């Protein structure tokens, strides 16, 4: 009998195809929107996370605060502190100091203003940054204070545009001081990272930078790479603790870590996705009201049919089941079409963004389940109304 009642419900949906389709529309759009938003959100999130991970492994960076006086800075943020940090923190694999300044490159009469980065060989490893020609700085460059320079890819293009750069000599001027440097390497395209656009910079030994291009001895940033076998949070804690002990005031330095940024990013995008998904879920509610509206009209239109069924022996629960199942079918079919629609939308948007498509099965399950619940919830009132109709009154309904 249950099957027969289901068949009756489906038949009456089939008879009025256009109306059936229109009444499902709200649910179709609602389910589609929820799935598309959550899936597009997590696809984008996964893409950003992956991008950040390619920037380097688990890096913590520390720099002096703005409120630290230049005298203090000069005294406290030095190469020696960087070395000490590396020696004292077991969860830190290596420490890389960085000193930057604006300078001018000149080669064969052509000049470009750029950022001169003084650093150590570790800079390439922590940024997962590879040379495409020659090599990056090495330990001898540092120890001997050599005038060697490695060019970011944009800088190499600027002066050599595809021709051999390694071995050429280039002039770097800073504060009216001029020195000639030998190009020892050209780096790959890396683009924008947290530290800036790596491609638009040039790299020289930090010792050379401090000796020839700086007026002060302090360094700008200390990068610490967490040991591969230590949890990211542990390395960060050790670095934080080191500087807190060393400076005595957590306001004197600022510390960032990649996992922290990833976490914040994750939180922000999750919140955003949930919020948008929630808004889309409201359209599901609206879809439910649409179903209720159609079902109420349908009950009124079919009053006589209900009367006939009752005269022939239908109990209240048979009528209730029939109309409830109609509403449930509307939301169920609407939900299925909505899943297809959401999947398509996700496919097109992720394709456009060049991201890998992630359709969350949880989002699909939740949206579909919610649609069914809405079908039952909004179908219940019309179905109860139908079941309660008086047989005599409904038989004489014109």
């Amino acid at each position, binding site marked *: *009998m249950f*099957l*027969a*009642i289901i068949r009756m419900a489906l*038949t*009456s949906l089939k*008879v009025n195809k256009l109306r059936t389709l229109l009444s499902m529309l709200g649910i179709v759009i609602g389910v589609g929107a929820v799935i598309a938003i959550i899936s597009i959100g997590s696809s984008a999130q996964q893409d950003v996370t992956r991008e950040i991970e390619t920037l380097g492994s688990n890096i913590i960076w520390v720099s002096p605060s703005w409120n630290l006086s230049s005298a203090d800075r000069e005294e406290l943020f030095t190469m020696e502190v960087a070395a000490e940090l590396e020696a004292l923190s077991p969860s830190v694999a290596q420490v890389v100091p960085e000193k930057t300044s604006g300078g001018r490159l000149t080669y064969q009469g052509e000049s470009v203003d750029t950022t001169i980065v003084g650093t150590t060989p570790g800079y390439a490893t922590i940024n997962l940054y590879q040379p495409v020609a020659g090599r990056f700085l090495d330990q001898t460059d540092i120890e001997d204070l050599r005038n060697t320079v490695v060019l970011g890819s944009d800088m190499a293009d600027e002066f050599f545009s595809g021709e051999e750069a390694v071995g050429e000599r280039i002039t770097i001027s800073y504060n009216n001081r001029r020195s000639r440097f030998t190009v020892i390497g050209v780096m790959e395209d890396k683009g924008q990272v947290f530290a800036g656009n790596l491609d638009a910079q040039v790299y020289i030994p930090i010792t050379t930078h401090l000796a020839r291009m700086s007026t002060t001895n302090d360094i700008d940033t200390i990068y610490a790479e967490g040991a591969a076998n230590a949890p990211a949070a542990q390395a960060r804690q050790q670095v934080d603790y080191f500087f807190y002990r060393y400076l005595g005031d957590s306001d004197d330095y600022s510390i960032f870590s990649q996992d922290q940024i990833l976490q914040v990013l994750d939180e922000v995008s999750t919140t955003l996705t949930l919020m948008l998904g929630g808004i889309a879920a409201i359209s599901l509610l609206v879809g439910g009201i649409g179903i209720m509206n159609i079902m109420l009209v349908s009950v009124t239109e079919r009053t*006589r*049919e209900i*009367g*006939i*069924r*009752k*005269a*022939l*022996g*239908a*109990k*209240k629960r*048979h009528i209730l089941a029939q109309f409830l199942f109609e509403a449930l079918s509307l939301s169920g079919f609407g939900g299925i079409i909505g899943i297809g629609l959401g999947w398509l939308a996700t496919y097109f948007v992720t394709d456009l963004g060049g991201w890998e498509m992630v359709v969350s099965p949880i989002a699909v399950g939740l949206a579909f389940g919610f649609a069914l619940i809405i079908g039952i919830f909004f179908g219940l009132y019309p179905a109860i109304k139908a079941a309660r109709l*008086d*047989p*005599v009154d409904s*038989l004489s309904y014109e």
Partner: protein
Amino acid sequence: MIVVEDLRKVYKNGEIEVEALKGVSFTIEDGEFVSIMGPSGSGKSTMMHVLGCLHQATSGKYFLDGEDIGTLNDNQLAIIRNEKVGFIFQQFNLLARSSALRNVALPLVYRGMKRSQRQEKSRIMLEKVGLGHRLDHWPNELSGGQKQRVAIARALVNDPSLLLADEPTGNLDTKTGKDIMKIFLELHDQGHTVVLVTHEPHIAEYAERIIHLRDGEIEKDEQINTSKAEALRQD
């Protein structure tokens, strides 16, 4: 067997009360063919709705096959309607979007019968009323007489103890009406209890007994001679 004792039915619409039945008593034996006659508004349809268990009387007693209908709840009334009563209406009251076969099978659905059995039984019923060739037709593809025969097949499919017809020939021409009345006579001859509601004397006279209603009361309850029925049987 039907036993009705001092039956009253009062319709209440807010302040206004209409007493449609004002204390009616009669007995109908199994296998009788009875017409209930009376002018418009005399309470014929009300009587039929009570007899068909579509609604409860306001007071008085109604026993159907010994069962006190007045004590039953909605679900129990539905079961009685399903198993013991077959309705035939003036407006046919077929489901417009279902085939003849599905219409006839409907009471069996609510009885919980299996699909194959339902179809088999409904097909046999339709063949009996001469519509074996119209099983898959929709009501709008059938003539008035054919529709009423589908309705009769549907009323009979659960083998009820009481057939209730409210103006069954009201929407039919004289010739077709006669055909339908002939079917009722055949059913009567097979032993069915038939109660026919009509305001047309020439239709009422096919029965063997007429209960005359007026203003909700029995004016006359008479046995009549069956010469007219006999003539139709020979026809």
